[in-house]
């Protein structure tokens, strides 16, 4: 209930000639005056400029306005501007509403100024109707724990941790394996400089280990994350090393006496490690671990450890809980091991290996001491073939290009050639050579100069000579135009970089989305590559998409900067356009419901048994899906209430409804696409009356029913593309299910199917929106006014009955 009656001020903008050139602005202003509760109207040349804003502030004071409507450009343009203007005049910024008469009228209906003006009037009428019902809202402030969690101790995670630590924040660096370092520490040299990999990474790892602000939690798994931005509660399970961390000096004497060896995963199972050991010498933290799967408990290590007594066979997994303000996900990638492909013989033929295995062979500290030898006979190969794009760029396996394999193949080929010179013939079979960045093309030239033979042709089949174990590769040398059978004594497969095997679990725990390629999805591929839809959680490195070291390092630092924008503030503001449950109406108290909790894409609603559902405000992103899903209509969304939207529907269809298209457009995609149609000056017939919602998930089916009850010619629900574009993750999917159930019912009741449309338009598809408008206008004409009226007449009593129940409930 409002304390005082609404006193609305309407400001119509000329926007130079952008609006005034088509629309009769004065007429709209005159019209606005006739609307109930409008106490003041003014038209301005440029409302957003200082003089224009001044006028608004003055008018608010002089005329005691408590609601402001600006009829001008798109709210996506200047809503924040005018909200501030109101705030400066001591009016709650959420008493402001924008009427889009530029992108939505003057710019897209230039040849029909009369109709454009009529449309503008109605848009203003709708905005005034909503403004009447607006409520004051306060931005929600949450405290910020100024600590960060970095998940993943690879090169990206290391950089994030160091940058944040240098800024003065406490950082927990969570690493699943025994040591930080990631795949970079497994490499021999890095391209294009051919720096020794561990030599450049090692000092960074030591810095991390030594930094007073960084606490490494290693050999530990992420169990659960709850909370919201600024206030995450993280549960971690530390796995038992059977070594007391603080007491282990890393001397290695235990390893010397241990009798058990098992394949060392770090060496791609080509070398061994002891049951008590570190994965590699430069491990950070340098703490040993006992692998109980192999340990025979002979206790020789205990004897060797002696007085330090660092070994404890009774160690149990330990669960700890951390409180952090932001989380950076830098979990990295795995490589594809093509055991499942019989054509390449990996796993069957001795001398076919993957590139990472090759790295471990040629590395001086590797299991062969840097000698590249064949598994079949331990001899050096006289010919080695590198095969590119194994599993990558293949619709049947991984569609994407893994990005760094061309470069690492060149690197390995160069290392091989420089080590063994003319003793080894090196071939590289490729589809394309992708060497775009700094120093990369020069690196390619270096490879050619060494006499590496480049064959353009994708290898399809590898055959093995059963006696010599030599291989024959079938490919087509496309430049010659001949199929070839290339002999090689060793084959190195450059396989795809794939998401880590536990990416699914990580996504579930952190509420991250994954793209079609399985990597974590960023908020926007161009402008927000490190953010995720979950506030406070950022991405860095190859877990977002395969990338090389400099790119990973940059993203690590970038993610640290993004995290710091939150951590550096004592409090974080959250927009109050959130959902609120009315505990009286919630039926979870009587029956087991919980539909809202289940459908919320952010898990932001709790619906404990026999209790009313509760929205965790700070986690709510304001999509409104729960509002539409609630069968008891017990939830509202601040600033987008049912009441407000019904008011807009009523006003939109007050006059000549049969000739109108009522459109519910989602803010991020369809509304933006419609804006773009205007910006691009794509003309279309002025039939649509748009209602902006944050997410198509907000569109209640009752909105559609009410629209048709009031006689709408057509109804359009415009959403983000399925399946991944929804800015609230799954709002569009919920909407689709809802409308998929509604449409056949309406059709059965006699509604022509083309009158109710659900369309997917992205922010970039201005043309598509304009074409859609034209198409719907044509269809409406073909149907004809008479038919529409007749169908409406038939529908009305049925829809009245269906909506009566809802209206009854609302009055209770």
């Amino acid at each position, binding site marked *: 209930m409002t304390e005082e009656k609404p006193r609305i001020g309407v400001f119509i903008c000329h926007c130079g000639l952008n609006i005034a050139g088509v629309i009769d602005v004065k007429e709209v202003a005159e019209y606005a005056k006739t609307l109930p509760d409008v106490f003041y109207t003014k038209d301005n040349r440029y409302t957003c400029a200082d003089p224009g804003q001044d006028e608004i502030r003055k008018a608010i004071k002089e005329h005691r306005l408590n609601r402001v409507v600006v009829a001008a450009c798109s709210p996506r343009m200047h809503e924040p501007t005018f909200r501030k203007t109101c705030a400066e005049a001591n009016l709650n910024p959420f008493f402001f509403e924008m009427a889009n008469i530029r992108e939505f009228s003057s710019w897209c209906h230039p040849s029909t100024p009369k109709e454009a003006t009529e449309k503008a009037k109605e848009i203003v009428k709708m905005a005034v109707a909503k403004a009447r019902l607006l409520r004051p809202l306060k931005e929600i402030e949450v405290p910020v724990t100024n600590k960060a969690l970095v998940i993943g101790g690879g090169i990206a995670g290391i950089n994030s941790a160091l940058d944040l630590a240098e800024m003065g924040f406490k950082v927990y660096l969570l690493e699943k394996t025994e040591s930080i370092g990631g795949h970079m520490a497994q490499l021999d040299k890095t391209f294009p400089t051919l720096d020794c990999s561990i030599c450049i990474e090692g000092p960074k790892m030591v810095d991390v280990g030594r930094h007073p602000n960084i606490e490494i939690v290693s050999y530990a798994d992420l169990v659960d994350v709850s909370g919201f931005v600024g206030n995450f509660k993280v549960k971690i399970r530390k796995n038992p090393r059977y070594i007391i961390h603080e007491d282990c000096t890393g001397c290695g004497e235990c390893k010397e006496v241990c009798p058990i060896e098992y394949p060392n995963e770090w060496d791609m199972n080509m070398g061994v490690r002891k049951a008590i050991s570190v994965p590699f010498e430069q491990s950070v933290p340098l703490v040993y671990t006992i692998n109980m799967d192999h340990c025979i408990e002979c206790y020789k290590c205990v004897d060797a450890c002696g007085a330090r007594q660092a070994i404890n066979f009774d160690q149990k997994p330990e669960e700890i809980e951390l409180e952090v303000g932001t989380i950076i996900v830098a979990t990295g990638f795995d490589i594809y091991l093509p055991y499942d492909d019989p054509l390449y013989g990996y796993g069957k033929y001795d001398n076919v290996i993957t590139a990472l295995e090759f790295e471990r062979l040629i590395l001086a500290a590797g299991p062969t001491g840097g000698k590249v030898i064949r598994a079949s006979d331990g001899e050096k190969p006289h010919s080695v073939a590198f095969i590119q794009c194994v599993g990558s760029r293949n*619709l049947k396996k991984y569609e994407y290009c893994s990005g760094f394999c061309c470069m690492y193949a060149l690197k390995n080929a160069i290392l091989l050639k420089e080590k063994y010179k003319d003793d080894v013939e090196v071939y590289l079979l490729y589809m394309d050579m992708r060497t775009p960045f700094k120093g990369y093309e020069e690196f390619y030239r270096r490879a050619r100069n060494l006499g590496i033979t480049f064959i353009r042709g994708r290898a399809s089949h590898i055959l093995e000579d059963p006696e010599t174990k030599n291989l024959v590769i079938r490919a087509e040398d496309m430049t010659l135009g001949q*199929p070839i059978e290339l002999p090689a004594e060793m084959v190195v497969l450059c396989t795809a970089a794939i998401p880590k095997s536990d990416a699914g679990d990580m996504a579930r725990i952190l509420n991250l989305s994954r793209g079609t390629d399985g990597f974590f999805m960023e908020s926007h591929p161009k402008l927000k590559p490190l953010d995720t839809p979950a506030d406070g959680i950022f991405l860095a490195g190859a877990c977002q998409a395969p990338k090389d070291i400099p790119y990973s390092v940059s993203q690590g630092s970038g993610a640290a900067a993004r995290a710091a924008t939150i951590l550096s503030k004592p409090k974080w503001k959250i927009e109050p356009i959130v959902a609120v449950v009315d505990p009286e109406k919630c039926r979870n108290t009587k029956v087991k419901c919980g539909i809202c909790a289940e459908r919320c894409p952010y898990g932001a609603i709790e619906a404990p048994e026999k209790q009313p559902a509760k929205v965790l405000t700070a986690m709510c992103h304001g999509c409104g899906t729960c509002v539409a899903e609630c069968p008891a209509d017990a939830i509202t969304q601040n600033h987008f209430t049912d009441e407000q939207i019904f008011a807009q529907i009523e006003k939109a269809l007050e006059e000549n409804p049969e000739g109108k298209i009522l459109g519910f457009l989602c803010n991020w995609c369809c509304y933006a696409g419609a804006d773009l149609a205007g910006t691009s000056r794509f003309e279309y017939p002025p039939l649509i009356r748009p209602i902006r919602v944050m997410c198509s998930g907000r569109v209640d089916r009752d909105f559609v029913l009410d629209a048709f009850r009031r006689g709408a010619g057509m109804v359009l629900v415009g959403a983000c593309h399925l399946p991944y574009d929804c800015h609230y993750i799954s709002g569009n999917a919920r909407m689709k299910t809802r409308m998929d159930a509604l449409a056949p019912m309406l059709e059965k009741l006699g509604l022509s199917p083309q009158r109710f449309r659900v369309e997917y338009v992205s922010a970039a598809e201005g043309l598509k929106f304009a074409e859609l408008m034209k198409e719907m206008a044509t269809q409406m004409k073909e149907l004809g006014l008479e038919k529409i009226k007749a169908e409406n007449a038939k529908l009305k009593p049925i829809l009245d009955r269906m909506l009566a129940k809802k209206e009854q409930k609302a009055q209770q």
Partner: protein
Amino acid sequence: MTKTMPEKKPKSKTKEPLKTAKKVTITPQPTPPEPSPTPPIQNVEEKTSASKIAEAAPIKAHEFDPHFKYEISKMHGGENLKQCFQCGTCTSDCPIARFSDTYRPRQIIRMAQLGLKDRVLSSDTLWLCAACFTCTDRCPQGVEVASVIRILRNAAVERGVIPPIFKELSSSILESGIAYRIPELRLKKREQIGLPPLPKSNPEAMEKLANATGFSKTLKKGEQT
């Protein structure tokens, strides 16, 4: 195995089995009879192949038909033609390409992509595909290589290009419903060894179907060559 020329007789609509039996020996030995005489196989490689691009004249501007790829993409099996990025996987293990100097499925797809309609449709190597589908199974971009070649063959036939063997097979199917006319003796042998008689065939149905699908018209085009 000797090849014999069939006697040139006018095309008859009767279901008479081929009476060139005097060249076919049914020996009392238990070896199968010689296959029914077919016209001499013309080894399609001996002629100039369009894939010998180095020897043929450079490709001129008027030879490019940019609409060709869209036409092929509209047909069943040709949908992914545009996705081919010329990696050579299809050709590298193609059983025919390995034994041929000139047959390169990748080049045929290339010519189709570039719209070199005349070159590809008049190419002889187009008829060397064995439809083993190894290429289709292995293509990393989902191009149904063998299907595209089939589409091109169908298009070539529409232009009147059809190797003799297919004319034979087509007319046999039209007239008897099956690809090979089985000699009377064979049928009697079935009876003798106790095999059930063969299912009936239905030439009227064949004719109706051939008319409905346009097959009869297509074949007539081939007769002009």
